[in-house]
């Protein structure tokens, strides 16, 4: 087996004496599509922030692409897409092209400039998410779903090995949500990019994810998506602390 893209060993994290994460062990295999589900306040976002190096664990080890996180420098190999469709400054006067270029900032590095090759990369990333015809539109004028595709392009442009998405479909209208997940599925299958998707939408798990993890302070389940669908309602409600209906998506 190849080395996992992200590996957490015995990770603990507390926030102001409140234990958020308890003894987390999690490996994200290369090329997998991991869906991370769990109730609000279960520590999903905290886990993401630990993996992104925005927080440091109280205990335990995290390694990214085989390197301990403390010495990991190649952050441009990790793409990140947040709930930005809701929270970025909509009045920001930037074109889609400019926003996607930002995905190359650290890759290009200090005292180096954006050149023709980078421009081609940006256009290519926009083609991958089917947004190239909007390249010179203002980002604020697009719909939530289109904006999220642009942010995916920004993550893609740096040739990432892993893309982390934190509830990316919040604020995206439901008609475009399916299209959005189809895009993720394609990136995972065709480009071989590993994905870590945090979501409330448990139905997505059964349709797209190759692996599923349920987090509520501790990791309650971590396996492939078939095993996940076979979990009983009782087991699921134990994880969530309340009854859940698993809706199986199919076309």
């Amino acid at each position, binding site marked *: 087996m190849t080395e996992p893209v992200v590996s957490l060993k015995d990770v603990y994290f507390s926030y102001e004496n409140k234990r958020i994460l308890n003894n987390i062990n999690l490996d994200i295999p290369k090329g997998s599509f991991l869906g991370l589900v769990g109730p609000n306040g279960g520590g999903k976002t905290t886990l993401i922030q630990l993996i992104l190096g925005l927080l440091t664990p109280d205990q335990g080890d995290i390694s990214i692409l085989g390197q301990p996180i403390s010495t990991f420098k190649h952050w441009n190999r990790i793409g*990140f897409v947040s709930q930005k469709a809701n929270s970025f400054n909509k009045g920001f*006067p930037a074109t889609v092209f400019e926003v996607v270029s930002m*995905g190359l*900032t650290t890759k290009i590095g200090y005292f180096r400039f954006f050149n023709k090759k980078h421009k081609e990369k940006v256009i290519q990333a926009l083609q991958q998410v089917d947004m190239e015809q909007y390249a010179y539109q203002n980002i604020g004028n697009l719909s939530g779903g289109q904006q999220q595709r642009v942010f995916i392009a920004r993550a893609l442009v740096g040739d990432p090995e892993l893309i982390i998405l934190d509830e990316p479909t919040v604020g995206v209208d439901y008609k475009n949500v399916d299209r959005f997940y189809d895009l993720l599925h394609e990136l995972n299958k065709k480009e071989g990019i590993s994905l870590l998707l945090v979501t409330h939408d448990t139905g997505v798990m059964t349709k797209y994810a190759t692996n599923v993890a349920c987090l509520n302070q501790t990791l309650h389940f971590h396996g492939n998506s078939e095993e996940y669908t076979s979990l009983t309602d009782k087991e699921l409600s134990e994880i969530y602390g309340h009854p859940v209906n698993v809706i199986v998506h199919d076309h």
Partner: protein
Amino acid sequence: MIEHFLQFDFLRHTFYTSLLIGLIAPLLGTFLVVRRLSLLADALSHVTLAGIAFGLFMEKRFTSSWITPIQSGMVFSVIGSLFIERLRTIYKAYQEIGIPIILSGGVGLSVIFIALANGFNTDLFNYLFGSVSAVSRVDFLTILFIAIGVVVILFFFYKELLTLSFDEEYATVSGLHSKRIHFLFIVLIAFVIAASIRIVGVLLVSALMTLPVASALRFAKSFKQLIVYSIIFGEFAVVAGLISGYYMSIPPGGTIVMIAIVLLIGSIVIQKFISNRQRKEQK
């Protein structure tokens, strides 16, 4: 109208200086406005006043001072920017609290130094509202040096500053040294404010950083356009304000800012008109 400015030495320095600040103040102002930090400029300008008052006090006490008021203003402004950053990390949940603290601290210190330097005089009046005739050769060279520095640094750090301004969280996650870039940005702001004070004055310097950008925001489709339009509006306001101020014997701070406001109102009206017409054409 402009010939006086090219004819007399003291006016020539003023004229070139105003061209420089008409460039750098809106240039840096674009980042300031989109990051919603416009008030920061106000806080720093008041700290700069404290530095200027300190410089005037030194001049009074020791007739030939080793530091000009503009230079001591710069030192205070940069120190003030460091304090604001410090306060931002101490009061994480109240990020803007540093601004009123530094602003009032700046005014408080200014009052003390002004009193020690035996109160108000025309010099101080010039620093408050700007002056057509106050730019000395040393001031001009200091400001020229700063302008070159600002343009060069922005040229090299443009992509980093833009990434940081658009989305601070993403910038950090993608491995950008956000804190260091932000720090560099704040220090540049401090320098530009101190440089602009000679022409527009302490009380109106933040207007020169924000008003042209507010006008440009009405038209700009991209960030590059925002920068170009902001500089055009800024230069126009500065040059027209300086010349009209000179001929009407009004401190240029007042005329520059009023022209910038007229430009802003004009931009809003014209942009409304354009978008209404486009809507009609679509129908």
